């Protein structure tokens, strides 16, 4: 067991923090979702523009109230899902995001997880609210990253109660 605290960032995290790709609100988004909470210091809003015929993500963007890893993870994910089908986008995991960022240290893995959680929420919401149908590949049960987002939000509620807000 090493006594060294792992380095928080790979250069790619800093690169995307300096120059985030696909940042900002999307006015014509097909679907919007969010994950996390300001109380936890980590919140992502995710915007998807979906071509309804092909079910391909033609454009996506994000806003982030979070640390540099959080910003980079959200930005990286928007790059990864561009021109991907909803099914392909769904299959990206936090480990894929982390790998693309050059590896997130364990204490920051939840940042990658939160971005994936927000994206999956958006995909789920698209089928539920717009398509009113669920494709076979979409699991009925919440995935690990969606649950993570819920856990983080539950933690925020706990914090709020603790500090009587």
């Amino acid at each position: 067991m090493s006594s060294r605290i792992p380095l928080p960032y790979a250069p790619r995290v800093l690169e995307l923090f300096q120059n985030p790709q696909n940042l900002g609100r999307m006015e014509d988004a097909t679907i919007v979702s969010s994950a996390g909470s300001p109380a936890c210091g980590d919140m992502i809003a995710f915007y998807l523009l979906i071509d309804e015929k092909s079910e391909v993500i033609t454009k996506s963007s994000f806003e982030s109230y979070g640390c540099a890893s959080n910003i980079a993870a959200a930005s990286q994910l928007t790059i990864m899902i561009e021109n991907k089908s909803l099914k392909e986008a769904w299959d990206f995991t936090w480990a894929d995001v982390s790998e693309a960022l050059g590896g997130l240290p364990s204490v920051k893995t939840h940042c990658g997880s939160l971005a994936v959680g927000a994206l999956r929420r958006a995909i789920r919401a698209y089928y539920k609210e717009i398509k009113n149908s669920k494709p076979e590949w979409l699991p009925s049960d919440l995935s690990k990253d969606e649950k993570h987002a819920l856990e983080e939000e539950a933690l925020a509620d706990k914090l709020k109660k603790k500090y009587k807000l």
Partner: protein
Amino acid sequence: MSNVEDLLEQHGKAIKEVYLDWENGTRIEEEVLETMKPFYLEKQFGNPAITHRVGWETYDFYVKAKSAIAKPLNADPQSIALTHSFTESNNLAIKGLAKMNKKRKKIIVSEVEHLSVIHTAKSMFKEDYKVKILPVSNDGTVNVDILQEELDDETLLVSIQSINHEIGTVQPVKEALEIVKDFDEKIFFHTDATSAFGRIPLDLSKLEVDLASFSSNRILGPKGIAGLYIKDGIKLKSIYEGQLSVEILSPDVENPALLAGFAKAVELQFSQFDEIKAHTTKLRDKLMYGLHTSIERTDVNGPAGKRRAPDNINVSFLGCEGEALTVESSMNGIYASSGSACTSRVLMPSHILTAIGRKPEEAHGSLLMKVNRLNTEEEINYVLETMPKVVDRIRSITGGIQI
């Protein structure tokens, strides 16, 4: 994981750099280093506990240097135990006292103590100690009325810091001490004076605390050496075992070079005490109120005026996450720290900012900066010019997310 050098290359270096993270890391001055050098290379490098010429020469220096360190505290040099850090001093004060006084099993500390006090006190739970945590007001001042209520015949120790390290609150130590001693003289009183040493007068012949921690690095002396004042007659037990040495409570091989650096830093800080206080107070107010007026939705954390440490600036920029803020500041050459959850390993916001009633999202947006005798007005001007851009950029990433 990539190489740190690649990360630094990606980061780049700003045209101007201003270091304000004195809370987390300090450097020494050339003069201090020069004072230390001969003790590494030429003279009095021996072990002061050994009976030969080099040992005695070292002992002679040791006694004189300790006198120099005790002087600004107006304390007997014999009452100063040298340790390796203020963390060790705080551990020694609490655990070392408990080991010698096993009848009473209640420790009272404030909610805003340094974690080296809070965690040490809480570590006594497993030895059946009761630990009471005193609340603070919204500027961080310890509530002494509740202290009065908590005192009983079980109480062994009360530990209240002299100045809060994060929001600069000057604590009512004198008042708390009187309350404790009026109730029962046998209750011990410790103050963690780490953030007060060299900032406000601490005359321990008048402020009769039993134990006081202070440190070399916080007055720009070398890291790795600190002190614990122990009032005459109070017995502590060492918290770790080792060989017999001059420092009975810190059994180790003494380091004369660090001691020389510590003594020199004391000389530099205290020979210009009033000038440094005036200088830092001026920079503090310029920076803190400058940020408050020039950047919207900015709150000051902690008290104002004389009740605030002369070197402490702590503000919250709402709508900014603090870790991102420190990284963006860094890219602009400004080095500071934040009480945000993401800067800590436990992913919880600063226990001090939440203790004063800051909402988690206010704590997440906090920035802690300290000024000392090395900082200049020109540096503060640069920070004031630059921070609005830094905050704007982080807020632009937050975008429409409602905080």
